[in-house]
């Protein structure tokens, strides 16, 4: 009995050692995965980026309307791929913020969240359009358990509607509230930078719909692109940089109050 015990223990020890040795070259092999090597060689020459000029935005909401129609997100539901926020900073330091229906009907009332605002008391007021930041390190993609959401080589984060299981983890992981469940397809939904348009040489529906040029899309890898030029030369801001997501939507005239 004791003899047998010893031999078995020996066997297990040998097996463990053997497994450890075998695991070494296996892990080394994994680091050199072919796709990663391929990615390193193939340098994409397009990286889509976005520029929002908050000085120019007037809160008409045409962008939201166009986005909803273009991308078949039902108009009457409150969820939306892009939206416009209104910030009214009062002279006493209070900040009033709202986004009625995501701003799809524009901002036509002086009341903010049903509160009357005395025009004399306004220190500054402005509109901030929001959309998916197409982060360089998208936390939403990192947490997808099945590989249903991903970033394309040119930096756009997309959702595979045939593969999404609808767990909502990506929605939870996005610090910007850019994601939601599509009310018809019942899968995670988000701004695609109008992938079907930009890949055909067009601009996004929201950029086209904006009368004031508050929204611009461009290729950040092209130094002559107007967006790239502004991003390189002007003082720009990004949203919630502390999360380390590296947003690729840049803002001109970003304020401390912007959430």
């Amino acid at each position: 009995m004791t003899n047998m015990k010893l031999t078995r223990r020996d066997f297990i020890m040998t097996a463990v050692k053997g497994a450890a040795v075998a695991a070494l070259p296996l892990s080394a092999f994994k680091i050199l995965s072919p796709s990663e090597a391929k990615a390193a060689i193939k340098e994409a020459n397009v990286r889509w980026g976005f520029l929002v000029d908050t000085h120019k935005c007037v809160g008409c909401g045409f962008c939201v309307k166009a986005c909803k129609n273009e991308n078949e997100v039902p108009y009457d539901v409150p969820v939306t791929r892009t939206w416009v926020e209104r910030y009214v900073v009062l002279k006493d330091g209070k900040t009033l913020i709202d986004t009625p229906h995501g701003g799809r009907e524009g901002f036509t009332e002086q009341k903010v969240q049903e509160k009357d605002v005395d025009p004399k008391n306004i220190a500054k007021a402005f509109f901030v359009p929001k959309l998916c930041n197409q982060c360089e390190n998208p936390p939403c993609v990192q947490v997808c358990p099945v590989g249903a959401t991903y970033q394309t080589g040119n930096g756009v984060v997309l959702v595979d509607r045939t593969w999404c299981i609808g767990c909502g983890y990506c929605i939870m992981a996005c610090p910007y509230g850019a994601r939601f469940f599509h009310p018809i397809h019942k899968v995670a939904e988000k701004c695609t930078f109008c992938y079907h348009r930009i890949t055909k040489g067009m601009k996004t529906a929201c950029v086209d719909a904006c009368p004031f040029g508050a929204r611009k899309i461009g290729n950040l890898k092209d130094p002559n692109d107007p967006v790239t030029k502004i991003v390189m030369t002007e003082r720009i801001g990004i949203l919630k940089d502390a999360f380390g997501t590296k947003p690729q939507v840049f803002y001109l005239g970003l304020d401390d109050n912007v959430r």
Partner: protein
Amino acid sequence: MKSHVWRPLWVLLGVIALALVARHFVVPSDFGVGERGFMYGFHRKSNEDDWKAFKVKYLTKEYCKECHEDKYESNMASKHNLIECENCHGPAIDHPDNPAKLVIDKSRALCIRCHAKLPYPTSHRGEIKGINPDEHNPGEECSMCHDPHKPDME
């Protein structure tokens, strides 16, 4: 290794083998790691084409110009030249095949998106000519007096 002790392990390996077989048949063949590596690029490659094939609906002024050049010219000569035709006329989609006629939004609600006066000193909105929708001819359509294609002529 002949001991009965290993039997649950064989069952486990059998289940794993079954899962691998199922994986072979169920998972699309183009599913794999893309340009952004495993963390950000693990996906079905053909889905990118699915998104590229999505229907374009807003075709911009350049498309309208092909047939309605007169309207295009008059709009471009006006202060409203920065507005897309489709913002008021609706997305062209396959017009004139589908839809044959576009539905024009002449509503007050559309105009006051910009022209409801908001007293915002640091925003471009504050500079746009505006009205108080509750006091300025409430209930009337703006186009009764104002031509949206030639707004400065009143």
